[in-house]
């Protein structure tokens, strides 16, 4: 399952930072992302590992609201997703 906003831009770029939010309920994965996105350089990718179903919808929505870029959401073999976000500014 990949989200609708997925685009090729930034796809294939390895994440500069991985945030492990597995087992954490929304809004915690989003709060972790918001607190750490500025730790990576502009144009770099943050990968959020999350298994709360709300994160699958909410991280792309956060990107839209905050003008960052949702690159893709990859399903994890163990359940949940690696949700890739590119820092835009």
């Amino acid at each position: 399952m990949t989200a609708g906003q997925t685009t090729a831009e930034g796809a294939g770029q390895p994440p500069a930072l991985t945030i492990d939010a597995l087992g954490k309920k929304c809004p915690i994965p989003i709060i972790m992302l918001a607190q750490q996105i500025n730790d990576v350089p502009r144009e770099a990718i943050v990968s959020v590992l999350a298994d709360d179903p709300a994160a699958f919808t909410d991280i792309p929505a956060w990107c839209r609201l905050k003008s960052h870029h949702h690159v893709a959401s990859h399903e994890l073999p163990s359940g949940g997703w690696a949700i890739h976000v590119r820092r835009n500014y």
Partner: protein
Amino acid sequence: MAYFDAASTEPLHPQAREALIEALDAGWADPARLYGPARRARMLLEQARAEVAEVIGARPDEVSFTASGTQAVHLGVLGALLGRRRAGRRLVVSAVEHSAVLHAAALHERDGGTVETVGVNRAGAVDPAAFGAAAGAEGTALACLQSANHEVGTLQPVAEAAAACAEAGVPLLVDAAQTVGRAPVPADWSVLAASAHKWGGPAGVGVLAVRKGVRWRSPLPEDDRERRRVPGFENVPAIIAAAVALRAVAADAARESARLSALVDRIRSEVPRTVPDVEVIGDPVARAPHIVTFSCLYVDGEALLTELDRAGFAVSSGSSCTASTLRPSHVLEAMGVLTHGNLRVSLPRGASAADVDRFLAALPDMVKRIREDAGMQP
């Protein structure tokens, strides 16, 4: 307590309360029998039917009373599918229908039928062309579209969808639970479902209307009640009270809906001004008059409901933490909007501007506190 959860249930209308108490004495007998009290119960039942029929734009013999809005939807969907079995077993629904529609669709699928779900845009509305194309596809037995969404208030393009369905010869079921008694009922339905407790009637009364000429067969065991559409002894007193409530609210709907709609506009404009990082959801214009939904970034929806309850506000939320399933609302998911920190404010008739102002004054500090507790600095 400021009650802002009318989309869940509207408080009983005072005239309905009076009518209910009277009808407990006047309408208790079996309307199917032939003695005096039974004839009186039947007369009151038929009078209620005629009144409800007039408001929803139906003939009285097209209207049946059910035990709930959910039962009206279940019987409407499954009965229309059964009646049209020869045409095919394909059911078309929008992605944001009430769970009553989606659960009936799931049953149809388990029973070997197929379901096509038509997606919605960011505002929560289906594209009428896409919906029409889905409904027009070979083998479609029924299409379902709500009049307005129960969580975000967005109106659906029912007239356009109905025209496309009519062209394809496919019946359209309209779930009008959120708008009957508040806005004019779209004219071109084939099957209509509504719920009395949403318009100020008592709980335990739903409305199922099936247009003459639309094929419909009961999916339940045979029973003589309600033109063989709904099994079980009618709740005549509650039906009478429901009709009284509907007549009362429909008479005042244009004025009261305009007043509530202005209050909703105030919430829609004030919340993003006073609370940072908020997404106001749903169509700002093409919407039910009384519903507004917004999501606050970095806020736990359950914590916000608890704070609001403590401060005397009754609202609801589509966030996963507030649902028994721990899944976010399928409506918010389908729209692709923020699902956490979600609040639905739905104004009952008579909601005061002062209460809305008090809510708007209380909200910013609450959100700020919850964000700080979660480690989110402004």
